[in-house]
């Protein structure tokens, strides 16, 4: 199906492995999205302070601030930033982790290894849903 991303839709990719971040970044840029990359949760929060972000895709295990903490910190921000849809990526497949991620306030969860096509589709669904909800 066709995805029609509005111009200047910005995705924040939080990923400590630069190789994976690069792959995700290039694929999302091909969708016409503006992509910002942060290496950990702290960098992500700094970027959130100064940029308008529409979607966040974050890894779970990262140095300095992990994905759980980042989700909690974002959800503590006042709206609209506190309501940005968040997709968590994790290489840990345990059910408990999945539940913890969603309970922390993430909107969706994907277990690594991930298909980049599926990632794009999931981000689109999150974007659509958040914009329908207003």
């Amino acid at each position, binding site marked *: 199906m066709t995805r029609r991303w509005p111009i200047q839709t910005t995705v924040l990719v939080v990923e400590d492995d630069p190789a994976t971040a690069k792959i995700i970044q290039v694929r999302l840029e091909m969708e016409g999205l503006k992509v910002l990359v942060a290496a950990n949760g702290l960098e992500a929060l700094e970027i959130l302070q100064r940029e308008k972000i529409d979607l966040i895709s974050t890894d779970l295990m990262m140095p300095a601030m992990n994905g759980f903490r980042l989700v909690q910190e974002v959800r503590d921000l006042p709206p609209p930033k506190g309501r940005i849809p968040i997709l968590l990526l994790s290489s840990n497949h345990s059910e408990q982790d999945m539940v913890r991620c969603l309970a922390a306030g993430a909107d969706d969860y994907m277990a*690594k*290894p991930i298909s*980049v096509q599926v990632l794009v589709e999931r981000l689109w669904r999150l974007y659509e849903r958040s914009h329908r909800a207003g």
Partner: protein
Amino acid sequence: MQYRKDRLNRHRIARYQAWEAQLTDYLFKKGYQERGFGSIAWPDRWLFRDFLARYLSTIAGQESELLRELYLSTGIHPSLPRRLRDRDPKVRAQAAKEIAVFRLDEPAEHAPPPVAERPWRWKPGIRMEGYIDHVLPLLDDPVPFVAHTAAQTLTHSRNLKFAAPVLAWVMREELYQRERLLRVLEGFGPSLLPWMKENLESPDQSPEPWILFALLAGSHRHRESLPRLIWLLDIPNVDLRASVLKALIILADPAVYSKVQGFAASPAWEIRAQVARALGVLGGPSAVPDLLPLMADPVYEVRRNAAQSLVDLGHSGVSALTWLADDLAADRFARDIARERLEWADERGHM
């Protein structure tokens, strides 16, 4: 020595940076159809393998297929059988890992393609199937990390013909290591459990593999194994019963409550400790009267588990604990553990 290491590192970083840019073009800008990836210098092939392996732990789907094709195009895979027998354990482990990472364990895919469909890279005489069989002897490797990597590769294949040797390898390990090695067995997926049911010896003769069965049934949440778990409860082996109870806690089927409750008076404290956790999970608030006698158990672990189950039950359980903590006529052990758990719950804001 240091100078050489620095030089190699600089070379690696330079190659990785160049390949990263090439790779995104190859994967997403139709590079694989139009231009290919570009040539890899002969001495850089091993570096390129490591570069590709990094991606395969995070990337799946169509891209991972393209990455695998790139690996095969380097032509290093025919040396795998030789590397699996190398004198250096790191080389042996790396070769075993390579088979799992690049999925060289799928014979159906690796059979020679029909002549008309042969890609330009396909070379007659090179068959990729069969590499996984070369990994099997590494289960007896004297170096533990090599044997562990070999077991991971074999389970990663999900091929149940390797279930018996991998299970035998797990059983050769020390008892305390086995639960840790469950993670390796989990690689076979839930289909391992029906295989175990069919192929394991009777639990009366050999209960130890059935302990792994029970723990795996729990970790996979394999409800289809519930009748077999209930049947295993009748085998008079303490470790087996305790493991089955652990699995029943995870499966959380209230229908087995009365069966579990029958073990509350078991002479083995390991079983009573698991019963104390299970009753709360399976019975909910109605389990309070059955948990209270376990609060006066002579073994601390049983009392603690019973008290924790009451805390987890919420209002009804906490009321029972509060009543017990204030009842001067109650057993002293029961009062102490009730107070301890109430304080614990209060400190963590569970009340």
